[in-house]
């Protein structure tokens, strides 16, 4: 069971994080200021840290850069009320692994935590991704389902790659938009759903067990069984 440290000065938000991650089966500890959080992070062997950007005593950016200085490579999810792109860049440059803007939907936060946790246990430099009979050759830029070669547009290929890298995990629309298109605003419409719909028609051909599933209220999941 993964252990998570939530460094967050707002008690309500902290409770929310603990409840949500608790319901996902994680063990969550809470630190209410930057200094205490840093000490716990250095000594506690956590699998992941959620870190508020603005904290009393020591701000989030300092905490994460001190951690990285001391070679603590625990994945850090930065949480901040500052949504500006520059703030995001600062957060990631200081050593954060992902950046979530407050207020956040708790399942969005949980989905990001899951993805960060799993990222470590999977090799980054794969050239071939496989889920059931779906194969993605990253070198040849070729996708096949069983014996059928899938004719994918570049965007669809990147979408499928992201889903396959995170198979078995919920990915939200925001996560898809950020990682596939590289932008960080709210695209507003159901445009991500439309893109997924297109991909799904190509991947989940009639008669085959579907691999891409909608998770109501939060996002999508690529998995064999659902």
């Amino acid at each position: 069971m993964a252990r998570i440290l939530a460094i967050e000065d707002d008690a309500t938000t902290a409770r929310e994080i603990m409840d949500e991650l608790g319901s996902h089966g994680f063990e969550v500890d809470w630190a209410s200021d930057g200094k205490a959080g840093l000490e716990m992070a250095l000594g506690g062997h956590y699998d992941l840290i959620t870190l508020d950007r603005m904290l009393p005593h020591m701000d989030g950016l300092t905490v994460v850069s001190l951690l990285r200085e001391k070679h603590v490579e625990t994945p850090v999810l930065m949480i901040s009320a500052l949504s500006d792109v520059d703030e995001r860049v600062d957060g990631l440059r200081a050593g954060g692994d992902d950046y979530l803007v407050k207020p956040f939907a708790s399942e969005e936060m949980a989905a990001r935590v899951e993805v960060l946790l799993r990222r470590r246990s999977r090799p980054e430099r794969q050239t071939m991704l496989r889920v059931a009979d779906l194969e993605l050759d990253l070198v040849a830029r070729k996708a096949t389902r069983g014996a059928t070669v899938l004719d994918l547009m570049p965007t669809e290929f990147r979408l499928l790659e992201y889903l396959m890298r995170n198979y078995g995990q919920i990915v939200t629309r925001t996560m898809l938009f950020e990682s596939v298109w590289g932008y960080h605003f709210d695209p507003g419409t159901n445009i991500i759903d439309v893109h997924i719909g297109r991909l799904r028609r190509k991947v989940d051909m009639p008669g085959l067990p579907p691999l891409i599933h909608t998770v109501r209220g939060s996002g999508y999941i690529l998995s064999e069984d659902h």
Partner: protein
Amino acid sequence: MKITELSRTVAFRLTLFYSLFFTLCVIMLLGFVYWQTAAEMTRRVDQVLVLERNRLAAIRPDRLPDEIDKSVQRDRRQIYFYALFSPQGSFMAGNVPRLPETLPVDGTIYEVTLPANTVQPRPFPARMLVLRLDSGASLLIGHDVQQVIEFGEIMRRAFVGGGLLTILLGLVFGLALSFRPLRRVKQIQQAAELIMQGDIKERLPVSGHRDELDMLAATVNRMLDEIERLMSEIKSVGDNIAHDLRTPLTRLRAILYRLQQQLGDGAGQRAMVDQVVGEVDSLLARFRALLRISEIENKQRRAGFKAVQLQDILGQAVNFIEPLAEDKAVALAMAGGAVEPIQGDSELLFEAVVNLLDNAVKFTPSGGHVEARLFQGAKGPRIDIVDSGVGIGEHERSAVLNRFYRGGAGLQTSGYGLGLSIVMAIVRLHDFGFELGDAHPGTRASIYCWPHGV
């Protein structure tokens, strides 16, 4: 500055009015002088004529022709007229060969014009009297009044010349005097234009002369300070509301989400909970957009701007929206070639184009088409998003833009959502221009990618 503009200033009109008034006064003064002088000159002539009449009337009739000849000879300047006619009317002596017909023979002085060839080849004015002597002969005595007429002529030339010169000088001075105030009014106008275009920090120029324009500018500036303060208050109240409501709404959504997960697919309430989650999501999206607008507006202009290839941005945006168009059977195309790179925020420009394309697809019925066009204009690149949809009426168009013009993002024109407000905020941040036009049929939304000085 145009002459017509200068000639409409208060300074010009006042100067011209005063110079006209002055001319009138001078004319009246000169007229009075002329009238007085002419009367005096006439009176003197008449006095001389009466003296001559008395002198000649006293001379014996037989010596009168000689005396008349002598008088004529004495008059070197040739300004006196004498003549003696027999009772039968024949000329006896003097320098006027014929008796003017219009002149009554009653000894009273009249002003007559001697016809041509009477004394001189040309006609000329004189004051004359004719007296019937006891002998029955007629005695004519006259005096040339050419001088009085000439004096009048001089006066008239003075009126016309002086009057014209005064008016001309008045015009020149008027223009010169109105130049400076007009230039300052123009400066004030330019500043006001900037303020109207949304640069609420701009102020009217104050020259420091403490004149009436300065007084006015200072008052307007104080008013602008107050308006700016009120606007920022309203804006921050709006932002705070959006900010404060967002957190509880997010929590509400979290609870609903948990409820949604707990209810099985078959549960009767599931559909209702789904609907509620959808509504909360659209509420949250709206708050996000509101805060996004103020976030963009608060950005430091040009901080973090980089060279941006618009054709890449447009291509990406078209690819991004394309499935949406395909689902709706709307043809989406891109036209136009490479344009010069511009300085900008590529992420924000992408967001703006996506919003415009999204709106265009939304308002275009199935079977229609949407086109993203890119041109290189003389001043810079221009992006047109043209659709074949229902279009926006001209009146509605300006309402859409005006409403969203200055952070009026809270207002929502039916169907346009906050997308256009975000586009406007991005365009303003870049100092670009934005226009909604008619595409006959449909709508054309244009972003003019060059500095507009706002």
